[in-house]
């Protein structure tokens, strides 16, 4: 593979849910659903802190609150693309990270949700750069973990 110094890595996470695609899609877009799962373990995202303006250029903002000490982590993103019920793309202006959620109907009321995170404000947008990133860095991370404390 050619040297791709213009681009950066991309992380991919996927999970299959026992639910119809349209419902999983709405969960990722509607504050009434997001409040149930947006904060990771030990962190809540109160409904009143979630702002969703579901259109390209619209804001997606949340405040995650640490359950134990009350510290607040605001997040700020802007929607780039919303294709119901297939895809949601937002970008975080502060970090330049672009997150793409893809919803795949597996049949039998099962849906695969794939999250791709690209950390490439400049080089990423060209099709050539995109083509180069079939790799996912998290697999590399897992591999290095297997190598263990040898480094």
């Amino acid at each position: 593979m050619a040297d791709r110094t213009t681009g950066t890595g991309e992380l991919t996470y996927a999970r299959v849910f026992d639910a119809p695609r349209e419902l999983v899609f709405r969960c990722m877009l509607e504050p009434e659903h997001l409040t149930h799962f947006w904060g990771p373990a030990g962190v809540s995202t109160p409904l009143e802190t979630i702002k969703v303006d579901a259109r390209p250029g619209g804001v997606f903002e949340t405040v995650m609150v640490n359950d134990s000490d009350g510290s607040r982590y605001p997040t700020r993103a802007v929607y780039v693309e919303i294709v119901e019920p297939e895809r949601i793309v937002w970008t975080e202006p502060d970090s330049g990270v672009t997150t793409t959620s893809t919803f795949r109907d597996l049949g039998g009321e099962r849906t695969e949700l794939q999250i791709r995170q690209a950390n490439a404000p400049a080089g990423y947008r060209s099709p050539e750069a995109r083509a180069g990133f079939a790799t996912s860095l998290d697999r590399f991370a897992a591999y290095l973990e297997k190598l263990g404390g040898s480094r």
Partner: protein
Amino acid sequence: MTVAEDRLDATFTALADPTRRAIVARLARGDATVNELAAPFDMTLPGISKHLKVLERCGLISRTRRAQFRPCHLEGDVLDAALSWIEENRRVWKERFDKLDEHLRDLQRAPSQRRKGTTDG
């Protein structure tokens, strides 16, 4: 953008290439000379040197000045910074997925709430 974020960007850029990942994986097992690093690849020494320069620029590897063969050394702290960023992201999404899974189960157990899901919000 902070210095730390700049370095993180550079680290991810460096790691976005399979040859450089292979070099890093090799160095994770111990220091090696350019010749040793080049051996598994169908690549010229200048080709390998280019990759090493990219890795050196972001601080992932260092080369000692004094030894004759200038062995390459993996800087674990720089790699750790990149890996912990990845780990943190992975953890957040894993936990979100876990909670979403639970939420979807709740929604589907109570079909009356399925339309909006507002009653327990």
